[in-house]
């Protein structure tokens, strides 16, 4: 943002005369654009999720509003805004009302530091990763508040579950992020991205075995932090009716749902920025990309593509896997993820020392090997999906049905 403002000052006389006002306008404008943009991202994600779920479950999914039902999210949103905002009589009314805001703010504040390009970022904070961990913790506050204020035992159980779960998995997620931050040497998202290259073998995920494993730890832990299946215990439908948002309706319920789907993007974006090369375009150096506005947009498109693939994977997992039990979840975190994460941090530190001592080709060879391993993993997944689709195709078809 700062760099862009300097650029703006050189081009625009108004900005030279009133720098403070111009900066204020720029920040407000960027905020509005970003909130609009991510709202427009979270909405279609709900449509994608429902269509993907429909496809996986041999049904159709929403297909009435707009082409292929694409505008269903607008219709649902409008419907929820028009509905009565019901507050239970026995609820703590003030807490019940304000509980949605921390959840909403916690998710949307992360967009300040998540970059889409060298200039397309709210603020390149030098403590970006810490800031991200801090604001996502706000979500827990809101969920506990809603669970308590609803004055329903199911909501309370959901709130308690989410408190335990999110606080625990934040530790594991933090460890995994730390593992990747050590080679990058900075907590700023821009610095972390600039440390990586555009090609897959230059990404941090394949920098060392430690970061390779940290990628999986972070992905799992962030699923748990975002209350996604297989860790969707706070709103476990078959156990807790709807968990912390049982008593919510109308606009407030929409805000919970909205935050949840925006959070999907946050999960994808953080992984993209930290592990998967962020907005770097293969074969283009940073200076070229910074100076060309079209390359910046191309970088943003690459970033969004990578994040969307990860969003798709989360959706895919949600409609495939069953749910863990609450004690298994905590056991997994504190007995396996946290010690393993600490081990990864130590390994990453050793790797830094080791990489300085051995010739460059050794570390490069290891990166290439890890890239091949990752590619084999992805290819194996695709082959299996393809195999299952083929197996379904070869099965006899009922001509007498439908």
């Amino acid at each position: 943002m700062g760099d862009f403002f300097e650029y703006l000052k050189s081009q625009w006389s108004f900005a030279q005369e009133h720098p403070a006002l111009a900066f204020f306008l720029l920040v407000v404008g960027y905020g509005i654009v970003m909130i609009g943009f991510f709202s427009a991202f979270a909405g279609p994600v709900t449509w994608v999720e429902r269509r993907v779920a429909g496809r996986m479950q041999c049904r159709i999914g929403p297909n009435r509003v707009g082409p292929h039902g694409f505008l269903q999210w607008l219709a649902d949103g409008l419907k929820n805004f028009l509905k009565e905002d019901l507050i239970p009589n026995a609820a703590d009314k003030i807490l019940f009302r304000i509980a949605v805001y921390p959840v909403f703010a916690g998710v949307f504040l992360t967009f300040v530091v998540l970059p889409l390009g060298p200039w397309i970022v709210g603020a390149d904070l030098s403590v970006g990763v810490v800031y991200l961990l801090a604001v996502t913790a706000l979500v827990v506050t809101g969920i506990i508040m809603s669970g308590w204020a609803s004055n329903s035992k199911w909501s309370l159980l959901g709130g308690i579950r989410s408190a335990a779960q999110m606080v625990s998995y934040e530790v594991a997620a933090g460890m995994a992020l730390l593992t990747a931050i050590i080679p990058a040497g900075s907590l700023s998202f821009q610095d972390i991205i600039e440390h990586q290259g555009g090609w897959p073998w230059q990404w941090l995920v394949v920098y060392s075995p430690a970061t390779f494993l940290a990628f999986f730890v972070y992905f799992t832990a962030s699923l748990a932090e975002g209350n996604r299946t297989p860790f969707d215990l706070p709103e476990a439908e078959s156990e807790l009716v709807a968990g912390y948002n049982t008593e919510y309706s109308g606009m407030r319920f929409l805000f919970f749902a909205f935050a949840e789907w925006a959070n999907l993007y946050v999960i994808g974006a953080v992984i993209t920025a930290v592990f998967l090369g962020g907005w770097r375009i293969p074969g283009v150096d940073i200076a070229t990309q910074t100076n060309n506005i079209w390359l910046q947009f191309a970088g943003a498109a690459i970033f969004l593509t990578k994040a969307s693939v990860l969003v798709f994977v989360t959706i895919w997992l949600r409609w495939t896997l069953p749910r863990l039990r609450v004690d298994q979840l905590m056991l997994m975190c504190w007995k396996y993820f946290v010690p393993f994460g600490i081990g990864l941090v130590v390994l990453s530190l050793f790797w830094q020392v080791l990489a300085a001592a051995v010739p460059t080709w050794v570390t490069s060879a290891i990166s290439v090997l890890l890239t091949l391993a990752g590619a084999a993993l992805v290819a194996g997944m695709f082959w299996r999906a393809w195999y299952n689709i083929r197996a379904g195709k070869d099965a006899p078809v009922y001509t007498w049905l439908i």
Partner: protein
Amino acid sequence: MENALNKQAVSDDLMILNMGPQHPSTHGVIRFVITGDGEVMQRAVPHVGYLHRGIEKLAEGLPYPSFVPFTDRVDYLAAMFANHGYAMAVERLLGIEVPRRAEYLRVIVSELNRIASHLIGVGAMAMDIGAFTPFLHGIREREKLNDIIEELCGARLTYNYIRVGGVSFDFPQGLDAKIRAFLDTFEPLMEEFDRLITVNEILVKRCANVAVIDAETAKSYGLVGPNLRGSGVDWDLRRDLPYSAYPDFEFNVCLGRGFRGTLGDAYDRFIVRVQEMQESVKIIRQALDGLPEGEIKGKLPRKLKPAKGEAYGAVESARGELGYHVISDGTDKPYRVKIRAGSFNATSIVEHASRGLMIADLVVLIASLDVIAPEIDR
């Protein structure tokens, strides 16, 4: 009962949680009063009676054949068995012979119905554990079964197909081939289902060693069917008290063996149902191959007036022994019909088996017992 519970809870500082009658995973209108300390339950007391319709009493005011449609409502996920049990009891009372073809047709539709019911059973269990997709895959297969049975008798859920003395309709032309086509696709699809959920590690972790019911407890609570066999008790009415055409067929009785944990845990009951579907496929194939020609309805008097006496007819339903005890006083209406249904006993074991479980495990326990509300209350 309730006040006593409340007092105890207050003195022990425990939480009372009311699960049902409207709750996504109680499978109908059942209510469980859970006494617990947060997530860990001390016990869950089932409260039944929300779906009581007085079906047994209704039987006393109806002529014998007119009660058959009411039996459909005893167990609407496996209505063929409910028809069959009543028809058998009345046939024994009257002492009439059922033609072989009718017996074979009864076996075929019963086993098709068993597959449909078990698909819902295992699918709903997967859904209660959080996986929604396997449930809908099960529903998809059940739709095909519904289509087959609709073609046979015109109904998709409450069939009214097995009547006193025989069955209501013969196979329409081409249904034989359609059932065979279904079975051919069903077997590979079961493999797909197994890959998707049965061997899923999370499901195994959720079910294995959870809600263990040992063989002695299972017997003393009167569990029947897959729940009893899941505890390792080798008892199947189709083999041990043979009825209808079952002695003609070869099939295995599937038993729990502690597949991934303790004998008699929730996973055993799940696996027994999955395996029973494959055994049903075997039985249907044999019955289709050996389907004899002939009448589909025995010779019945115009008005059914059995002599004074009583008879008991029991079938191995998808939920275990479903028995009808019919007492005649010599008129054209039964003096008393008593229905013995598996789900009632299965619900009563919840209080025993749920001690010390977590709330998430209670959901698994209820689903693994495959209880269905109309069969509990009748």
